[in-house]
């Protein structure tokens, strides 16, 4: 069956080559049937890659270890769900999933635009097929998912235990969807520049794709942060790691694009900005994909394999050079229809928004690629750490939150003083009240956090005012009761009010970040059973150790052999708050050389954190039990010597009993962070707002808009 999979890859290459040729021929000669054939090539590519993915998935689920990928990342003892998800845990499998998702989203995009923009879509098709060809070529030449070994090994290595978490299973597909969706606006942007067509129709189409890309990318980044926080042992959600940053960069330019597009729509301005942002977003997405795969930057995430570096660099260089050429050669098409009238206007605020977001992007880009830059410039590799990133991104984030309160409320073209007084009084009052309340409550010593709280209050006040005034206006016009007016307001102005909700979510998110990072309490220490430690206002007592032995073929859990942990009693002012059970799981390594007992425990240990999460704060605990005490090591050695492999589990059970009996010290990592949940709540609000904003208007509204438009429009003119 591997033959079928590989044949599909070769077929995919052929389809891509054909599709590029036929799309370009069709659009140059004006023969639509060739353009259609090119579009169907994308559908065919999606179909062929689906077959390939199915072949690989069936191999995973069926434990076909002849496939090298399956043998390297799965095993009979890997739980079922993780077997299916293991496809994207390896270099070659993830390339296949990337190409497959890209072909699916491209098919959808072309299907939705099949009756419009035939010329733009034709060029876009060629670009998308080009990307498809690139990734399939990588697989065929460098990282073949269908490579086999004969004879097939009897058992695989198993999915790395660090990946056996639910969040880890949905994070890659969503993140890859985000990355691949970014290539669609890129393709349509290049197509529009080639076809010399950047107008209302293009805007309408590209906005949808950019929004989808933004949504998935943002969700992917959030899921990564959530996974890092709740399932990894370091207690943080963002480490400015190269791979985290790589996914954030296109999201930032995507955010700028979505906002700045509104200005192009309304005032015909910022056209150069918009195409540049679209091209930058796509290029950054490809750069991010490259960064994760090439191993050129030290990161805990990076896949191995320096061989992929060269093709990617060529692709990125081509994208950058091509983009610059296209924008420069089409600059007559990109002239602004209007000029900036005043620095205090909505247009300026959106421009400032673009600048801040691009500035943030530049800072993070510079810091992420700094090891390469410093090596190139000084010959020595150096890197910057989280403090450097924080120093520059925090002030920019403050400005961003403040802008989200100013932008929606300031007038178009020119803001007047009276105007400003009317619109900014209430939000500023909110900010001031918040400041006074916080200072009064004794929250001080952290000026940046305070500044963020005030900016967020300002933004929230501004949005609240918008909702209030909008509902009031609707009541005046339609006489509805307040709650109905609010709902109707949002339904009839989805883009605007959905966007406001997104701003609310972002403000809440930043408040959570500021509070949880500036005011957290950390205690890392070792405790014996019975001992307590203080962290913040809480007292944590190590009550007793726990040890659980999981049978080797247990598919219900994550498949650990042994789990050592502790029962912790968390109290505050004497009152019981929670009982937490952090643990560390020890897994099989599959290496017979480690001995019958050693091989059961020699795999990657994984920390399972325990936390008590409420809206106000999180009490986060992790344990590092010591499995290498002399007594326990002796059990392993003796077991290795005397027990056959199938009885190794007996020694593990004995070890567990001894651990409980000797009640040893263990290392604990205890963190109390206020308002961490606000980050995730904020994220959910952002997603909700985004969905409202892109939800299409019901068909009947659209029809009403069409019919009788002329008379209404004329009547309107007469009214004035």
């Amino acid at each position, binding site marked *: *069956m591997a*033959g*079928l999979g590989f*044949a*599909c890859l070769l*077929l995919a290459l052929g*389809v891509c080559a*054909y*599709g590029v040729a036929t799309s370009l021929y069709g659009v140059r*000669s*004006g*023969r*639509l*049937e*060739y353009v*259609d*054939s090119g579009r*169907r*090539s994308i*559908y*065919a590519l999606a*179909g*062929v890659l689906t*077959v390939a993915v199915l072949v690989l998935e069936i191999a995973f689920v069926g434990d076909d270890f002849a496939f090298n990928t399956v043998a390297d990342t799965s095993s009979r003892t890997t739980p079922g769900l993780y077997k299916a998800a293991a496809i994207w845990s390896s270099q070659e499998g993830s390339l296949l999933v990337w190409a497959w998702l890209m072909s699916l989203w491209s098919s959808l995009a072309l299907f939705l635009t099949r009756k*419009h*923009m*035939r*010329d733009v879509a034709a060029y876009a098709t060629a670009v998308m097929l080009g990307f498809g060809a690139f990734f399939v070529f990588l697989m065929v030449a460098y990282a073949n998912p269908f490579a086999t070994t004969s004879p097939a090994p009897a058992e695989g290595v198993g999915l790395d235990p660090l990946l056996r978490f639910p969040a880890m299973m949905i994070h890659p597909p969503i993140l890859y969807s985000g990355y691949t969706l970014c290539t669609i606006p890129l393709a349509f942007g290049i197509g529009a520049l080639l076809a010399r*067509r950047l*107008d*209302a*129709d293009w*805007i*309408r189409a590209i906005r949808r794709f950019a929004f989808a890309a933004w949504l998935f990318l943002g969700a992917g980044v959030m899921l990564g942060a959530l996974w890092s926080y709740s399932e990894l042992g370091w207690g943080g959600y963002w480490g400015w790691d190269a791979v985290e940053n790589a996914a954030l960069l296109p999201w930032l330019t995507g955010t700028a694009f979505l906002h700045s597009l509104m200005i192009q*729509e*309304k005032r015909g301005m910022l056209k150069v900005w918009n195409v540049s942002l679209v091209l930058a977003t796509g290029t950054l997405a490809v750069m991010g994909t490259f960064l994760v795969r090439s191993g050129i930057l030290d990161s805990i995430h990076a896949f191995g394999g320096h061989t992929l570096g060269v093709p990617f660099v060529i692709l990125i260089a081509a994208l950058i050079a091509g983009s610059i050429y296209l924008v420069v050669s089409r600059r007559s098409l990109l002239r602004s229809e209007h000029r900036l009238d005043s620095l205090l206007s909505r247009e300026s605020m959106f421009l400032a928004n673009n600048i801040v977001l691009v500035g943030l992007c530049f800072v993070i880009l510079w810091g992420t690629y700094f090891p390469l830059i410093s090596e190139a410039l000084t010959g020595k590799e150096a890197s910057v750490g989280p403090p450097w990133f924080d120093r520059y991104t925090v002030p920019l984030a403050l400005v961003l939150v403040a802008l989200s309160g100013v932008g929606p*409320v*300031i*007038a*178009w073209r020119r803001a*007047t003083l*009276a*105007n400003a007084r*009317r*619109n900014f009084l209430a939000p500023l009052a909110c900010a001031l009240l918040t400041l006074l309340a916080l200072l009064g409550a004794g929250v001080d010593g952290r000026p940046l956090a305070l500044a963020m709280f005030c900016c967020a209050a300002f933004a929230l006040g501004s949005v609240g005012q*918008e909702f209030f*005034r*909008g509902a009031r*206006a609707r009541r*005046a016009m339609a006489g509805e009761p307040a709650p109905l007016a609010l709902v109707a307001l949002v339904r009839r*102005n989805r883009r*605007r009010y959905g966007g406001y909700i997104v701003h609310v979510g972002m403000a809440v998110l930043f408040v959570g970040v500021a509070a949880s990072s500036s005011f957290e309490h950390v205690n890392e220490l070792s405790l014996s059973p019975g001992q307590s430690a203080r962290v913040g206002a809480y007292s944590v007592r190590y009550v007793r150790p726990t040890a659980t032995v999981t049978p080797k073929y247990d598919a219900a859990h994550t498949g650990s052999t042994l789990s050592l942990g502790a029962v912790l009693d968390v109290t505050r002012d004497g009152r019981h708050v929670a009982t937490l059970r952090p643990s560390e799981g020890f897994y099989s390594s599959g290496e017979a050389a480690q001995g019958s007992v050693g091989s059961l425990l020699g795999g990657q240990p994984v920390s399972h954190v325990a936390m008590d999460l409420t809206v106000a704060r999180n009490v986060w605990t992790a344990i590092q039990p010591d499995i290498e005490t002399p007594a326990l090591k002796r059990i392993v050695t003796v077991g290795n010597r005397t027990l056959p492999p199938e009885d190794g589990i007996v020694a593990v059970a004995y070890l567990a009993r001894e651990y409980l009996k000797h009640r040893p010290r263990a290392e604990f990592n205890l963190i109390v962070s206020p308002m961490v949940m606000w980050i995730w709540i904020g994220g959910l609000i952002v997603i909700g707002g985004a969905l409202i904003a892109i939800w299409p208007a019901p068909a009947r509204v659209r029809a009403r*808009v069409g019919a009788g*438009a*002329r008379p209404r*429009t*004329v009547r*309107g*003119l007469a009214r*004035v």
Partner: protein
Amino acid sequence: MAVLVVILTLLVLAAVLAVISAPIRAARARREAAGGAAPAGGDAEEALAARTLEDLEAAREAKYREIRDAELDYRTGKLSREDYGAIDAELRAEAIEILDRLERLKPTDA
């Protein structure tokens, strides 16, 4: 097993060829039914007309949205009465222009 692989591969290949050649075969059939080859230019003209229609329809939708947005801005206090009057008149005039051009292209409805 190898035979199965070959058969499946050929099936996929056949499906792919069928899908991507369908529009070309259909166009050829249409042309033969219409009697002789129609000039390729005809397709291009059609495409151009269709393109302008799409543009205008999208521009019309965008203009309506702007008119509604301006009204909402006025009612929520972001535009003064005079400013709103001027902007509203301008937008409606632009909308009428778009409707006029649409009517010239598609005289059947407004």
